[in-house]
């Protein structure tokens, strides 16, 4: 299930309303795909935003470590 094929088109979906801005996904993404966004969500947290989507190898660490089910990797 761990996606290693970089030819697959991926989309990193961030559900900003579920995010509580803990930054774990940003701090532990091995390829620095994510960064703190400038926008604040309704609850006052800063969700991550994708800054280097092309670097994403789809390891799904961010998806599995997220305490809020706020980030997921979708394959197109």
């Amino acid at each position: 299930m761990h996606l290693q094929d970089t030819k697959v088109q991926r989309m990193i979906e961030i559900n900003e309303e579920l995010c509580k801005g803990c930054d774990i996904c940003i701090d532990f993404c091995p390829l620095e795909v994510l960064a703190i966004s400038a926008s604040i969500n309704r609850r006052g947290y800063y969700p991550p935003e994708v800054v280097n989507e092309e670097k994403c190898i789809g390891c799904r660490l961010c998806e599995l470590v997220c305490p809020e089910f706020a980030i997921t990797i979708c394959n197109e």
Partner: protein
Amino acid sequence: MKDDVIIPGPEKRLKPHRLLKFLRQEILPTTFCPGCGCGTVLNGFAQAVDELGIDPKDMVFVTGIGCSSWIPSPYFKGDTLHTTHGRPIAFATGVKIMRPDLKVVVIAGDGDIAGIGGNHLIHAARRNIDMTVLMVNNWNYGMTGGQVSPTTPFGVPTTTTPYDNVEHPLEAAELVAAAGANYVSRWTTYHVFPLMESIQKALQVDGFSFIEILSQCPVSYGKMVDMRKASDFLKFYRDQSVRVHKAKAMSAEELEGKIVVGKLMERERTEFTASLRRINERFRKG
């Protein structure tokens, strides 16, 4: 720090997270503090259920009192018995005996499972009753504001050990292995992939299975030790953890302060409810 604050307008349609189907979505987001490891445990658990293809109808969740008891109750969409403090394993014993066909899962904290309910843990492991217990160990009583717990490390300040904890922490996983469980492991919320695989394994074991999951509490515990970000804990778990096979070659001094992670026990002792049923078979007609 952030000057150009943008309040998002009507959202672009998201592809739903494939694990959300396991949750009571109407009550999300969770009430967990930002960065709380409880959500990561829920995530890993849902992932494990998804990968094993278990129908939530075939599961019962039994929880106690404390933050981590909220992991399945109410968030996981399944039958849930949210019990009194310390007693979930004892309640789960009654459930499992009457309905051995259901997978019984207890998720609760270190205070609940190893503190007030420690005796039930020992005896359920001794009986080797088929259930999966996830003890989410955040090293303190987080829900009540960060008091010392039976697993708080030695020498650490908490709200009730203002002059540092002078008690030694309980090694719950080793205790359960000694008590007779069929499967015991310890992981952390940093080790999300092996944790998820271990949950899968625990759910499949016939007998008592126990995973001690070190899980960050950046708010109640972190405030006392200046670890206020979830990532501070995850880095600590990453840097301080030692795999079981490596730990075996290390001295007690070398292991001081380390977190031994991995599978601590796997064996095949007779399961309790099956034994009860074998007694009943003797009296069955025909």
